[in-house]
Every structure is written in structure tokens, then in C-alpha cells.
């Protein structure tokens, strides 16, 4: 009785929340620029499709090197992040740690790369740190969430209460290790994607040539690169074993690209002492108070001109993308569930998800720009495709689990009344988790002329105005901390109750 009533109230809450999400997205679209500009993309699209479906490659050796570096950076970056994230996750209750994690997570890997490039140049350290830092913060959060859901709690083993570390080692870790391992595997896939995207700013990964190929209209080459990239990601599950990690990491480290960049200590000093401060406070005969005043003035005018408008469009874009992602996921879920019955159709579904989640948003946006013209619409669709591909991929496992416990094939009504209600709480919690990522991914869509915070940050880096870049990155990070707090509250509100209901079943 109790279960039933609490179940229905959670259901209601979830329904209302979903409706609210979609309504917010629609409302945002009123204020945002979502106009479609008539264009004549067909000639160009035909060339593009022809190229993409006739992949050819002139330099397979280069491709092999690119793929190798993509993997190496991802391997080392994600492994470092896992270590750091593991340590941080133990301290995650501490508000300061949580704040710092949300703060550093908020900064897009591309911007980390642009920052470290000022310090270490175009080197392996830049790529690895750009992956490791935001990923460590993500690991911390997710590992912490996993511990929260561990079934055996401390009070059942009072003799370990006095040592937090033994408690972690002997109580928590054995329980959550399978989940952590599976998350590590998933995160590694993300790491490979990130590593590829880092090529867009000049690091020697597959993204370097992919972006060039798209820019130059060399679509056969782009097709070959994308295909190779998809195959790489699809193959991860066959060769990534935790016990082989040391071997892989050893190989990756041995063959890392060398760098002739030697004067990094000078750069680090220069960056922090000169680069990140605006010219207005660099005049010699200023007192501290004058400097502070000048800095305040500079900051407030920056906020007014770029920060606030940027924040506005970032939020609008994120709300719309979130709503579109939700709708697309809800449309995809029944399709994928019904597809599971047949082997061939199922593989087609898996391929679709792989393509959706692995194609860099930049490239999706590029194609959509040709079709729809410049506005927020291509950005929204690109973000929705990518994120719904990811969420659906993650939900797949739960659909599979639900299915083995019931019948072999699922009918549509089974889906509506069994699978979907089971999944929905998880779905919303994943969606909230992606909300944060959508917020920062809007950064790399500057080609569309959408003036998000990321657009202004990118401009600041392009203009070598690190003072502006840093101030805006700070603002982005703060925005993310707020969103993170909100989404945490919502997640607690839904997923915990969802889990409670299920565990009572």
C-alpha cells in the first residue's frame, strides 16, 4: 500500500518534472534565435555525402599515428584522473572539495588545453592534463554517488568505524568495484572522444586532421577518419581489460610524442604574473586599492559586455538542448527496445547510437549549419543528437537487464508499462547529469555565431586576452556550480526515491 502510493507520487513528480523541462525548453525557444534561413545546401551536401560514403585515405601511416596518440592521451589522462578522482571521492562530502570539483569540471577540455598550451606548448602534457583534470573531478563525483548507493553501510561493521580508510578498503570497495570498473570503461570511451576533440586546437590526435578535412571539403578523407574513429570506439570493449592497463600505459608512455618545448617554468611564471591580469592594473604607480578599484571596474564592464549576455544565451541554449535531448531519448527508447528482438536490427541500432554519440558536435553543427543556416537551432540539434545518443547508450544496459528478468521479446505495451516506468528515474538522473555537460559543450559551437560564454572565451583565447579568458572561465565555472547544486538536489529528489521504491519491490 505504502509502496504503491509513494511509487505513484514519484511517478507524478517525474512526469511533472519532464513536462516542466520540455516547457522550459519551449519557453526558451521564444526568446532565442531559432530561425531557419533558406539556403541551397543540396549541391554541397551531395558532395559531402558522396565523400563520406566513399572513404579514402592517402596516408594510412599518419592515420595509425593519429589513432595511437588519441588512444595514448586518453589512456594516460583517464588513468591519472581515476587515481586522483578516487582520492577526491573519499573527501567528496567536504563542501570545499565538492565545490572545487564542480568548478574545475565546468571548464571544457578544449579550454583546459588552451590554458595548458600557454604553459607547456603543444605537448603531451597539455593533452594529458586537459583530460585528467576535468575527468578527475567527474570521477570524484560519480564514485561518490556510487558509494552512496552501496547496500552495506558502516553501522553494520562498527569495528571499522574508527578508520575511514579501512572502511573504504574493506567495506566499500569490494561492494562497488564492479560498478567502478564499468564506469572506468565508459569513461575511457569518453576519454578517447575528448582526446580526438583536442586535435581541433592543434594537438596531434585524430581530430587534427578530421577538422582540417571538414574545413577543406576533403570529405572522402573525413569519411575515412570518422570510420576509423568509430571502429576504434566500437572495439574498446574487446581489448580494454583492467589487468592489461599497465601494459597499455607503458606502451603509451614509451611512444609519447616528444616536445622541443623547454622553457616552461618561465612561461608558467609569466602566465600567472603578467598574462592573466588586464593592462589597467599594470601601471607601476598604483596603490593596491587603486589596483583593486581598476580591476573591479574592468571586471564589471567585461561582465556587462560579455559575461551576462553570454550567460543568457548559454542558459537558453542549454535549456533548449536539454528539452530536445529529453524528447529525442523518449523517442529513441521504444525503438531501441523493440529492435532488441532481432540480432541484425539490434546491431543497426547499436551502430546508430555509436555514430550519434561519437561524432563530435562540431561536425554535426557544421553539417546542420549548411542545412539550417546560422542560429541556435543547429546547435540545439547537434547537442541533442550527441547527448541522446549517449543517454540511450547508457540506458541500454538497464533495458537489457530488465529484459533478461522478463521475457525474450518486448512488445510495445510491455515497453510502456514495464520498461519505461522502471527506467524513467534513471533516465531523468542521467539527463540531469548531462545538463552540466550540455552547458559546457555549447562552448565549441562558435562557428554558428551563437554567442555563448564559450564563444567569448574562445574569442579571448584567439585575441590572446588571457585576462578575459580567465575571468569568463571563472564565471562559467560558477554557473556550473549553481547548476550542479540544482541537479544534485533534483537527483536526490528523484533517484533516491526511485531506488527506494525498487528495493522495496
Amino acid at each position, binding site marked *: 500500500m505504502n509502496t504503491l502510493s509513494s511509487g505513484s507520487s514519484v511517478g507524478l513528480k517525474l512526469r511533472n518534472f519532464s513536462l516542466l523541462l520540455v516547457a522550459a525548453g519551449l519557453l526558451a525557444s521564444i526568446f532565442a534565435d531559432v530561425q531557419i534561413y*533558406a539556403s541551397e545546401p543540396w549541391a554541397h551536401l551531395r558532395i559531402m555525402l558522396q565523400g563520406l560514403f566513399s572513404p579514402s585515405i592517402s596516408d594510412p601511416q599518419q592515420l595509425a599515428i593519429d589513432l595511437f596518440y588519441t588512444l595514448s592521451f586518453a589512456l594516460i589522462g583517464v588513468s591519472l584522473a581515476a587515481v586522483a578522482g578516487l582520492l577526491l571521492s573519499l573527501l567528496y562530502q567536504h563542501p570545499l572539495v565538492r565545490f572545487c570539483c564542480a568548478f574545475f569540471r565546468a571548464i571544457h577540455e578544449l579550454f583546459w588545453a588552451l590554458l595548458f598550451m600557454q604553459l607547456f606548448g603543444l605537448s603531451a602534457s597539455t593533452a594529458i592534463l586537459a583530460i585528467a583534470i576535468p575527468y578527475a573531478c567527474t570521477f570524484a563525483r560519480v564514485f561518490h554517488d556510487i558509494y552512496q548507493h552501496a547496500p552495506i553501510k558502516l553501522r553494520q561493521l562498527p569495528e571499522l568505524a574508527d578508520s575511514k580508510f579501512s572502511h573504504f578498503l574493506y567495506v566499500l570497495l569490494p561492494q562497488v*568495484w564492479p560498478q567502478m570498473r564499468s564506469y572506468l570503461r565508459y569513461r575511457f570511451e569518453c576519454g578517447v572522444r575528448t582526446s580526438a576533440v583536442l586535435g581541433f586546437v592543434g594537438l596531434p590526435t585524430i581530430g587534427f586532421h578530421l577538422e582540417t578535412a571538414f574545413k*577543406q571539403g576533403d570529405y572522402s578523407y573525413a569519411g575515412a577518419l570518422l570510420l576509423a574513429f568509430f571502429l576504434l570506439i566500437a572495439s574498446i570493449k574487446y581489448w580494454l581489460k583492467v589487468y592489461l592497463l599497465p601494459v597499455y600505459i607503458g606502451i603509451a608512455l614509451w611512444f609519447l610524442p616528444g616536445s622541443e618545448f623547454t622553457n616552461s617554468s618561465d612561461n608558467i611564471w609569466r602566465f600567472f604574473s603578467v598574462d592573466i591580469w588586464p593592462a589597467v592594473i599594470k601601471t607601476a604607480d598604483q596603490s593596491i586599492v587603486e589596483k583593486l578599484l581598476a580591476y573591479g571596474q574592468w571586471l564589471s564592464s567585461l561582465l556587462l559586455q560579455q559575461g551576462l549576455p553570454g550567460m543568457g544565451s548559454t542558459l537558453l541554449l542549454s535549456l533548449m538542448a536539454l528539452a530536445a535531448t529529453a524528447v529525442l531519448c523518449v523517442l529513441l527508447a521504444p525503438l531501441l527496445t523493440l529492435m532488441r528482438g532481432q540480432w541484425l536490427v539490434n546491431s543497426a541500432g547499436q551502430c546508430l547510437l555509436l555514430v550519434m554519440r561519437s561524432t563530435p558536435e562540431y561536425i554535426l553543427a557544421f553539417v546542420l549549419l549548411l542545412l539550417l543556416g546560422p542560429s541556435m537551432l543547429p546547435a540545439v540539434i547537434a547537442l541533442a543528437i550527441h547527448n541522446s545518443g549517449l543517454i540511450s547508450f547508457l540506458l541500454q544496459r538497464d533495458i537489457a537487464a530488465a529484459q533478461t528478468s522478463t521475457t525474450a521479446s518486448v512488445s510495445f505495451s510491455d515497453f510502456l508499462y514495464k520498461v519505461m516506468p522502471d527506467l524513467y528515474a534513471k533516465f531523468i538522473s542521467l539527463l540531469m547529469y548531462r545538463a552540466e555537460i550540455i552547458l559546457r559543450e555549447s562552448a565549441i559551437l562558435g562557428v554558428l555565431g551563437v554567442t555563448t560564454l564559450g564563444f567569448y572565451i574562445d574569442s579571448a583565447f584567439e585575441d590572446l586576452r588571457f585576462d578575459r579568458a580567465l575571468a569568463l572561465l571563472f564565471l562559467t565555472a560558477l554557473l556550473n556550480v549553481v547548476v550542479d547544486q540544482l541537479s544534485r538536489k533534483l537527483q536526490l529528489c528523484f533517484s533516491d526515491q526511485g531506488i527506494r521504491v525498487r528495493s522495496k519491490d
Partner: protein
Amino acid sequence: MSCKTFCLSLLILVTSYCTAVSGAVVATDKVLTFTAIPDQDQSQLRMRFQQVADYLTTELGVQVNYIPVKSYAAAIGAFRNNQVQLAWFGGLSGVRARQLVPGSRAIAQGIEDRQFKSYFIAHHSTGLSASDSFPQGIAGKTFTFGSKGSTSGRLMPEYYIREQWQRSPQQLFSAVGFSGDHSLTISQVQAGAYQVGAVNYQVWQSMLAAGKIDQSKVSVIWQTPQYTDYQWTIRAGVDRDYGAGFSDKVQAALLQMRDPQLLKQFPRSGFIRAENADYQAIKETAIALDLLQP
């Protein structure tokens, strides 16, 4: 068990990363490295400039290497950090680089760079046609610049737009994009993704000659007044590092470049002497548009 292997792998990872990073400092012989801003045809950059590197190696008697970069900012960053000592910059990127490394100088420019210009191009559906005066009809259309740091694709076009209307492009156009490079600007306007765009006239002409432009779809509607653009800039301190008079030697080698095969890579008909003062106007424009700190 698996937990133990995990911990072990972590240990190996951390120690080996530390050794790898500390060992990454490689002693280098005296090598001169140069780069060029990736303004067009990026896939061909290495092929284009390797020939120039070979030419300079024979002329200077020092090993000269070329490294490709992905963006204008990366080219400037490499120059600033002494990863490159010589660079083929655009007007704005050169000014920025010389501001960051005081004592650096512009030593040579293309003959065409004295009278450089940008083309405004439009998709045929806009109904705009070529005119001698500023095309008033572009207001309210969608507009794309090239790279954010480009002189001919951003700085000068934006300057003339602001001069005409006293308003920013964002206020004037219904959407403002940054395609990233000149060839992309042309293909996006040709496909109608953007209605109007601003592009380096040299890139337009070479793409036209290569048959990559369908003039029934996209055409030039206006050309900006002339300004000074690309130049070779050499870093401060090369005379100390490579021997007295080295920068003059580099300048002489550049000015003597006659091989059409080499000049075609820029594409310029030859190089002439240049100095920092030639770019004063560009510098002032950049400051006026808040693209450079005074």
C-alpha cells in the same frame, strides 16, 4: 585480486608519468623553426611550406624546419614561446606577435601585401550585385567572417562595417559567424549557409582559378580600400642565438626568393622589404576594435 592489480597499475602509472615528463626535455641543435598562419588550404600546409624550409636551409646554412599550427593564436603563441623564430603572419597576427616579443621585426612582405584588400561576397539569393560604393543592402543579412584573428577576414571588414554604420556587426546583422578560414567562408556563402561573407581577395582568386567557385551561386559585391597585410616577422634575439647579422641574412634570403614554385605557395609574385612602421595603421585599427590592448 583485480583490486590489487588496479592499485599496482596506478603506482606504475604515476611513477612512469613523472619520469616521462622529466625526461621530455630534449637538447636541441641549432635549428631555425618557422610557421605560417593557417589561413587557407590547411591540409596542404606542410607540403606548401616544406619547400620553403628546404630553400631557407640551403640559403642560410642552418637547418630550417617548418611546423604547422592550427590557429592564428597558436602561431602567435609558438612565436612568443620561442618555438618558432620566424613566421609568415597576417597583418593583425604580426602586430600581436611583435607586441608580445618586443624587439621582433617585420622583415619582408609580399609585393601584393602593400595593396591588400578584402572582398565582400554574397549568395545569389540576396539579389546583391557588385558595386563601387559600400553595399548598404547587407544590413540585416546573415554574415560570416573568417578566423577571429584574421586581418582580411575579420579586422578590416569589421572596421569598414563599423565605419559605415557606427554599429557593431552583431547589432547590424541577423547572425554573425566565424567560419575559421577563408576557403570555408567561400564554401559556406556558396551553399547559402551564410548570405554574405568577407574574404581575403587572394584566396578568392586562387579558388576561382582552381574552379572551386560557382559564380552563379556566389559573387563579389564589394572590395574594401587597400591596406597592408601579410609579412615575415623575425623574433628578437636571433642575432644573439644564431650569430650577428643573422636576421639580415634571413631577410636577404627571403627577398631573393625568385623560384615561382616557391612563391606560388604564398601566393605572392615576390617579396620586398618591410618594417614594423608599415603596420602602424593595422595596429591602430586593432586597438580601435578592441582586438589589441594598447
